[in-house]
């Protein structure tokens, strides 16, 4: 659960007032668009202090708060 707060804070910056549960779809549901993904990446990178490798980002890996957390945690193990 290490990055859950970072992700929620980032989402709150991008979409103030957006309320989603951790397993709710962000992109498929239409809460976020392709530019929001870019902004989410930028916010997360700034907040956590890493550069997220895009070759590891898939539509599925960024489609919910819990999946993003899982992705970032997995990334940490790789790095």
């Amino acid at each position, binding site marked *: 659960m290490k990055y859950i707060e970072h992700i929620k804070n980032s989402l709150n910056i991008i*979409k103030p007032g957006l309320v989603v549960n951790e397993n709710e779809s962000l992109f498929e549901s239409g809460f976020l668009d392709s530019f929001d993904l870019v902004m989410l990446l930028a916010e997360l990178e700034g907040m956590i202090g890493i550069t997220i490798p895009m070759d590891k980002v898939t539509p599925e890996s960024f489609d919910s708060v819990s999946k993003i957390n899982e992705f970032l945690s997995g990334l940490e193990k790789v790095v």
Partner: protein
Amino acid sequence: MKATISGIDIKGVLGIVPDNISYFDDEVGNYQSDESSNNKLKKLMGYEKHHVVSSDTCVSDLAVKGFLHLFNTQQFSSNDISGLFLITQTPDYIIPSTSSVLHGALELNESCYCIDINDGCNGYIKGLYEAASYLSNTNNRFAVVVAGDVLSRRVSQKDRNSYPLVGDAVTITLLENTGSTNNISSEIYNSGAGHQALMIPAGGMRLKSSLKTSTPTVDSEGNIRSLDDLVMKGRDVFTFTQTTVVKFLEKFINKHKDYSDYYFLHQANKFILERIATITGLDKSKVPTNIVSEYGNSSSATIPMTICSKFSDSDLSKLNSNVTLCGFGVGLSWGAIATSINSLNFCQIIKYEE
């Protein structure tokens, strides 16, 4: 494709932009997105202003303006040009080629070789390679690469994915067969499987323009465009730049370590350029990123526009710069050139009065 051509030098670069400027802040009312999102996007992508043509200005209009400026300032004459390589995705007509239109307008010699290359963001790399090959094989002295687009005419003003980014510009690059020791080392790659990532679906033979194709519809992100307009799958393009392009550029840079004074990359947008620089470990002071915010992304024209922007205030006669140029985008296509830019005869950006 990999090739090294010797004895050819870039002798001048001119950018021509329409004097009509559109500001992102004035356009946000066209988009469905909220103010907060627009402000963040502006900062992240570098959206500030972009030069766009009026409704009837064509690539050849901007190019003629540039050539007349060069002829009048006695940089070279129409008789000097033995090859004209025109890179555009927005030709004046489907038939004939825009290079033929220019040939007529400029009264070039009948022996001048003219060809259109339909390409965008990697088009300048292809154009330089083609023109250098031509000079090397024919032993002629001068060739020009005319690269640019008036793409704003084919982008919906209600498409936030594309319109704030797009700028119109045409550039003229003069190449001379000097017999010098300078190399133009190029690598060019394509992946046509990704051709739908950036496209104008209608207007060609696959889907002719009609009342139906000109009817705007709303996409899932609230952008309004028709099939006659450019559509960019932003996420696919972004992933391409951050994977394929980054991996390619890292290898190219390592092979051409001496060409490190500047990295003139296609000006996709500020965020993409800064990420490419970060991931490849390039010194950001050597990677200009200002073109999108000052002029907009003008497809094949952005690399020469960046060169103009960087060197226009320099003492051109004393330039001695080993540079890497890199293009990437529509096709999908990507490539790079390592070469030296020395003692240019001209290097500036001029305005086309609408």
